[in-house]
Structures are given as structure tokens and as C-alpha cells.
């Protein structure tokens, strides 16, 4: 490190206006005597200049309007990621409806298999087909899942939904067994 660079912390503090008065006088004397030190100061100052010249976004009227609307609705502070553009473009229930029902269909098939193993092959030969014996996913269970829970598209979420549906299916199976018996 050159001697000029040894004074970098002092030069940096000088640029920030954070150098005590007595040190400023000393530094000015050094600067007057050293072209290299002046050049170094200019290099550090060039960084600030370059930063100030960087392009950046502008907070325009649209942003202000959005803020007004949120203030008017008394919006609580929440995670920025939860309101990312695109996320709010469609209600979660619609966006994930296909995924939810695919998961339910998958677990309904599993429920059918479980029912077949538990009850035996006879239901297959009964007048009522297996589809009649495994009720459709309960609306009550479905509505118990908060919409915001469905924002995530993770596999784990789908598994939870499926398990809930499976349990609902088995509950319905028990009830139908009880009534038919």
C-alpha cells in the first residue's frame, strides 16, 4: 500500500465532512504539498460522483396512487413478497384450482385403494360403484383451508391438501358403511 493509500481513511472522512477541524488543517497542508495525495483524493471523490450519477427509478404518480389506496383501506404492513406484481393478478383459489383438484383426484384414488383393501373386493361387484362409495372432497374441509395457504405452490402444500381430502373421504366412507350396515 502506498503512502497515499495509508491516508485513505482520513481522506474518506474528509470527503464525508467527518474529519475534526484540527485534522482538516493538517490534511490540507499535506494535500497542498503532495500531488499524489491530491490525485488519491480525486480518485475517492470520483467514486461518490459516479454513484450520484447512477440512473435510478422514479417514484411517480402511480406509486403515490397505490399508496393512497392502501392508506385509505387501512392496509396492514405485510411482506412485500406477498404483494409482488403478478401474485395478485389472479385470486389464489382460481390460480391454484387445477392443482388443488389434481391433488384431490390423486388422493381420492388413494382413498379408493384404501377402501378396497379395507372392505375387500365385494364393493366392486356391488350395484354401487366405488366412486359412489368414496365421497367427493368435502366442501367444509376445502373451505377450511385458508386461501393464503394456497398461495404457495410447494409440493408439501399439495400433500397437506391431499391428506385433508383423504381424511374427509375416509370419514365419508365410515359414515356410508355405518348407514348401509
Amino acid at each position, binding site marked *: 500500500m502506498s503512502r497515499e493509500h495509508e491516508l485513505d481513511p482520513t481522506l474518506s472522512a474528509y*470527503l*464525508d465532512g467527518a474529519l475534526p477541524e484540527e485534522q482538516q488543517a493538517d490534511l490540507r497542508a499535506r*494535500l497542498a504539498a503532495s500531488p499524489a495525495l491530491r490525485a488519491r483524493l480525486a480518485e475517492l471523490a470520483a*467514486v461518490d460522483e459516479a454513484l450520484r450519477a447512477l440512473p435510478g427509478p*422514479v417514484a411517480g404518480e402511480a406509486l403515490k396512487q397505490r*399508496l393512497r389506496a*392502501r392508506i385509505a383501506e387501512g392496509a396492514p404492513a405485510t*411482506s412485500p413478497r406477498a404483494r409482488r406484481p403478478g401474485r395478485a393478478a389472479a385470486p389464489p383459489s382460481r390460480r391454484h384450482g387445477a392443482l388443488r383438484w389434481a391433488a384431490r383426484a390423486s388422493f381420492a384414488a388413494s382413498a379408493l385403494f384404501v377402501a378396497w383393501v379395507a372392505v375387500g373386493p365385494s364393493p366392486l361387484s356391488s350395484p354401487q360403484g366405488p366412486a359412489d362409495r368414496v365421497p367427493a372432497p368435502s366442501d367444509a374441509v376445502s373451505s377450511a383451508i385458508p386461501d393464503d395457504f394456497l398461495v404457495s405452490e410447494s409440493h408439501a402444500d399439495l400433500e397437506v391438501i391431499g391428506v385433508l381430502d383423504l381424511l374427509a373421504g375416509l370419514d365419508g366412507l365410515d359414515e356410508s358403511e355405518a348407514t348401509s350396515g
Partner: protein
Amino acid sequence: MQAFQRGDEQAFEALFDRWATRLLRFLDRMVKEPAVAEELLQETFLRVHRSRANYSPDAKFSTWLFTIGGNAARNELRRPFRRHAHERPDAVDPEGDRAPLQLVADLPASDDVAHARRVGDAVGAALERLPERQRAALWLSAVEGQSHAEIATALDTSEKSVKALVHRARVSLARIVTPDGEQAGPPRTPGLAETGGRT
């Protein structure tokens, strides 16, 4: 701010007009995602709106605003999985030799305008690679002109730490702009009077 505290909503809009773009630029440099920066900006002004009773006129409004905004940005940066999505593996130590940053001296300098653009690109890229606190401290000092005491408040640290953070960040970026102590590209060295400290 005091007018807004008395219930003048127009004063709040005036605060937004005056400070929002400056805060947005800071947030954009911190989180590196324009959409997230906009959301953080709104969060910050929502908090200002809700917390107006807590504001003390003893503090500068800008310090309070950038403290709230800086906290929001830090929270965002600490969200799970955030680091993987927005920080490159070579972004850890800009003073080390691991990050192959583009040096301005390596760029062809055809004219002043083109050179200035290249310097801007190189400095912007180098700024992104700085550690979060160095980036914040340098921006608040060099661009916002905040004092070390104000930055210390915003970053919840000491003035001594701020001095070190700003110094390290500035020296790191100086290596990009002027490697090996040589002025890169067309002369842009301001005179001594122009580079004088803020007093």
C-alpha cells in the same frame, strides 16, 4: 412532517414528493429488485403515516425515513431463500481477488459520454457486490449526504463503524474506477476545491 402530525394530509403528500424517489433509489440499490423496492417504499411510507405520532421533531425526517426504509430492506434481505436468489457466490468480499469485476481501465474509452456510461455500469455492478452494510453506508454518505451520526442511527451502529464501512466501500469502488492508482479513461479528476470535504 410536523404539519402532517397536525393532520395535514397534503403535507404527507409533500413529504412523499420530496423524498420518495430518493428513498426508492436507495431501496433499489439495497434489494436489487425494482418491484420489491417499490413495495418497500410503500411499506415505509405506510409506517410513516401510521407512526406519525411517534416522530420527534428533534430528529431529521430524512434520518427517520431512511431508518425505517433501511430496516424494511434489511428484513427483506434476511427472508429465507432471499440470499440464494439475489446474491452471487462471489459477492462476499469485493476486496478479495475472487470477484472478477470489470475494471474501467479495461474498457475502451471512445468519448466522454460513453466513458461515463461505462464507469456508471462498472460502479453500479461493483456496488451490488459490496456487503449490505457497506453498500448502505456508502450510499447514504455519498449520495444522500448524510452525516456519520445519521447513518449510524439508520444502521443501528456506531459512528466509528460507519466511518470504517464508508471507507472500505469507497476504497473498493475506487479500485474499480481507478485500478492501481491510475486515473482511468478521460481525465475526470476534479480540482482540490471541488473535492473538499463537507464541512
